[in-house]
């Protein structure tokens, strides 16, 4: 049964929304942003910042849009003189004790206080410069979080997140009146596995991540849609880069996966994307030590090598490789009668976020093991054991943990870096990492999600799907592909569980594969 709809007018725009919707959310439907601070769709309503005051015709007082629910026939004005004056008043009050240290504040450029003051605040303050501003020292809240009390506007988003979402109420509002600040429980730290979200939730630069402190100005960052590689949950993220360097990860809203949040483990899982010890050119070895060469030569040699293989062929895939690359590796292995394996790192103990169902840092610490399973790669405990007796080996970016030397005669290593065991490889083909290519991951629930290229790859490195497609072509086993989307289209054609999916249909929120998914263990 569809919910009862209520029709009202907001800023002259008529909208129909389900009964019980707040004015603020209804306004979003009408394309009107009602400025707000304390309201956040993922948190219980506090109604304390009083920024979302709007005029409702017939009401004796201004109403707060975050808490007042819609009434049929209501006429709401967001930009009326009275509402604007009220919000201007709030902004003026907020700036009384807010240091104007935007030039050294990490939040500048993405600060809601800055934005709204710029948008509708008073041009000049009426607060006298000789009046002292509230001063409290910067506090160290935990492993990654600093609290700059002076910038705090007491919206209590952080307090409510810890209490109602993380279910670990270590933060509070201490003191009263204009002496108030965010306090932390004595003897406790803000070290919950999901605590980093308070930094994103903070509308101003009051809660900061030590990890990214002073590392970039917001306006210098390029933002791309990504998927977290920290575990099999598949949280949607923003990959923020500056000058081709990934500076930080932030959660990207996806109601079906991670809502507004990501865990600290995932948040800090970005440094490897900036590694400097990358393979930058195809390397060909064999009898002689590995030496750089061009793609044509390297691919020709690789094809030649594989054609000549007479014994068992083993493909070792990384569960962090894109679905597209896994699919083409499978094609190669199928053509040559090879066996595909993968190993995945596990850490005991899920760290769940209490307030969001089915959201946790999972034990399986790889983003795409589900796809590997769906493409019939075999999970192995030990890569070393799987390699025993192989005549030829193709490795797709596995780090070869526990492998001292690959005994096989023919070893083709597709990698971003060159682990010690791969130094004996016959051919090394440089591939891009997840930040440097387009692709998809399949999360533990079978949701296929796209990620975007955020920066350029080093040197001659190319996406693994391109390398594998070219290799297949070289061997006369397939056609080249013009992009990851085309590879995915071929995948959707060939694999029934991906039936009907395509890059456009996935969008950036993803879609579930059809049929049962073998759940991650």
């Amino acid at each position: 049964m569809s919910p009862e709809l209520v029709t009202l007018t907001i800023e002259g725009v008529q909208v129909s929304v389900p009964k019980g919707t707040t004015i603020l959310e209804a306004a979003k439907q009408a394309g009107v942003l009602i400025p707000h601070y304390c309201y956040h769709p993922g948190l219980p309503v506090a109604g304390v910042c009083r920024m979302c005051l709007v005029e409702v015709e017939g009401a004796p007082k201004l109403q707060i849009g975050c808490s007042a629910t819609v009434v049929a026939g209501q006429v709401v004005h967001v930009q009326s003189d009275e509402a604007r004056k009220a919000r201007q008043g709030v902004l003026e009050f907020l700036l009384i004790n807010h240091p104007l240290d935007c030039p050294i504040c990490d939040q500048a450029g993405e600060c809601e206080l800055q934005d709204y003051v710029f948008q509708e605040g008073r041009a000049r303050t009426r607060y006298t410069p000789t009046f002292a501003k509230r001063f409290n020292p910067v506090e160290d809240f935990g492993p990654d979080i600093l609290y700059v009390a002076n910038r705090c506007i007491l919206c209590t988003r952080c307090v409510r997140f810890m209490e109602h979402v993380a279910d670990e109420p270590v933060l509070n509002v201490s003191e009263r009146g204009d002496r108030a600040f965010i306090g932390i429980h004595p003897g406790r730290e803000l070290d919950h596995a999901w605590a980093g979200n308070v930094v994103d939730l903070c509308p101003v630069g009051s809660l900061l991540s030590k990890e990214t402190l002073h590392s970039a100005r917001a306006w210098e960052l390029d933002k791309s849609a990504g998927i977290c590689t920290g575990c099999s949950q598949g949280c949607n993220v923003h990959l923020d880069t500056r000058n081709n360097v990934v500076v930080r990860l932030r959660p990207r809203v996806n109601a079906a996966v991670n809502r507004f949040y990501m865990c600290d483990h995932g948040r800090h899982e970005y440094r490897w994307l900036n590694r400097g010890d990358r393979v930058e050119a195809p390397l060909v070895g064999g009898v002689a030590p590995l030496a750089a060469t061009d793609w044509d030569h390297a691919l020709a040699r690789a094809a030649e090598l594989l054609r000549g293989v007479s014994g068992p062929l083993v493909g070792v895939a990384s569960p962090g490789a894109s679905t597209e690359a896994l699919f083409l590796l499978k094609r190669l292995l199928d053509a040559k009668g090879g066996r595909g394996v993968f190993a995945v790192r596990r850490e005991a103990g899920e760290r769940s976020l209490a307030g969001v169902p089915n959201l946790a840092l999972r034990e399986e610490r790889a983003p795409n093991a589900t796809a590997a399973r769906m493409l019939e790669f075999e999970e192995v405990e030990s890569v070393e054991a799987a390699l025993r007796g192989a005549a030829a080996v193709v490795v797709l970016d596995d780090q070869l943990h526990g492998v001292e030397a690959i005994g096989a005669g023919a070893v083709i290593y597709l990698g971003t870096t060159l682990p010690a065991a791969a130094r004996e490889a016959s051919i090394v083909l440089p591939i891009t990492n997840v930040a440097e290519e387009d692709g998809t991951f399949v999360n533990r629930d079978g949701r296929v999600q796209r990620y975007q290229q955020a920066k350029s790859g080093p040197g001659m490195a190319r996406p693994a799907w391109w390398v594998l497609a070219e290799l297949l072509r070289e061997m006369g086993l397939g056609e080249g592909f013009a992009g990851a989307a085309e590879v995915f289209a071929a995948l959707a054609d060939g694999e029934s569980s991906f039936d009907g999916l395509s890059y456009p249909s996935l969008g950036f929120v993803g879609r579930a594969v059809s049929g049962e998914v073998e759940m991650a263990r």
Partner: protein
Amino acid sequence: MGYPHAPHPKETVVLSKYFGEPEARTYAGWVARGGYQGLEQVIGMDRGAIIDLVKASGLRGRGGAGFPAGLKWSFMPTEKRKPHYLCCNADESEPGTFKDREIMRWTPHQLIEGCAIAAYAIQADVTYIYIRGEFTDAYAIMERALAEAYEHGVLGPKAKGPLRDMQMYLHRGAGAYICGEETALMNSIEGRRGNPRIKPPFPAAAGVFGMPTTVNNVETLAAVPHIILRGADWYKGLCRSNPRSTGTKLLSVCGHVRRPGNYEVEMGFPLKDLLYDLCGGMRAGHELKAVIPGGSSVPMLSRDEAEACLLDYEGVVEQGSMLGSGGVIVFDDSVDIVYQVMRLARFYAHESCAQCTQCREGTAWTVRILQRILAGEGETRDLDLLLDVADNMTGKTICVLSDSCAAPVVSGIKKFRSEFEAYLHGARRPAVAVG
């Protein structure tokens, strides 16, 4: 009666009849004075009939808002699906008000009886009497009286009939003014920080512990047994002016009068008579300057307004203020209005719970501007600034603390602008000991 003074013939003593008589505090003493007859009478009465009786009496909330008590009770669900609660607001922290304290100190059983009747009427299982933390004396007396009430089977296991399952607890506040706001009071009882809640939901729908709750002031509840015993018509008859304001009102008079204290008068009693007759007028050689008629949260009245004012809900509004809690603060001509306004604003700045932006920042800013004016460093534009800040603070927050801070500022500037200007123009020497 005007305890600690002898009763004045113009007073109408109902609630305060036994003030000053220590025996009235005991169960036996109270019963000897006709106590607990009202409670006896309601048991077995139809609950709706009790509520209708209170509605008909015209009893209105004595805590400040003046909301009709019977109507408030009628908001409680008649079909009980969850536990119901009654909260008696005894957190009398409004500056200038000290009537509830005296009710509890002298006639604790009067309050217990009123609570029990109300709890019965609204089907409350539990009553919390939330007593201001500073009222140690009143608390001790209430505690003794409540133990006696349980002992004598007024309520609790020894009681007969429906009051057997009724529980009544005293809960002490910890010193926050804002806990007198009904939703903050409920948070405080729950063990949370005393922050007012957003309404809706209203207490009758989701109050303390999320259950249907009614919050009534001490004086309101104390009047209930009398209404039960003597009838709605009698109570309605206690009215000198507007028929919408009925009964008696305890007025706490403090400041520059000869006999400050609590006085109980009929609604509509002239403020002029209260000041010059009951309270004995101004000190020798001094004249009335201003009156805050309903506790520190309401606008102040000039002398002319005060002398024309009739003390009922409508009469005080007519003069531009509110009856509020009935805390009458009297200023004679020795008072520096600017300093007084600053002193009141400073109270609110100190007591702001810090939730709403306007209140948290606006109250403190107001104080700073006033202190600057008092220090002789004000500028002419400061008065307009104060008024505009007050406007930004009024009617925009969860509770009315912010409005309460603005009220004396606005009324002070409106009615005594020349005093502010005297500071601004250097005609008046900076006040010492500012801050």
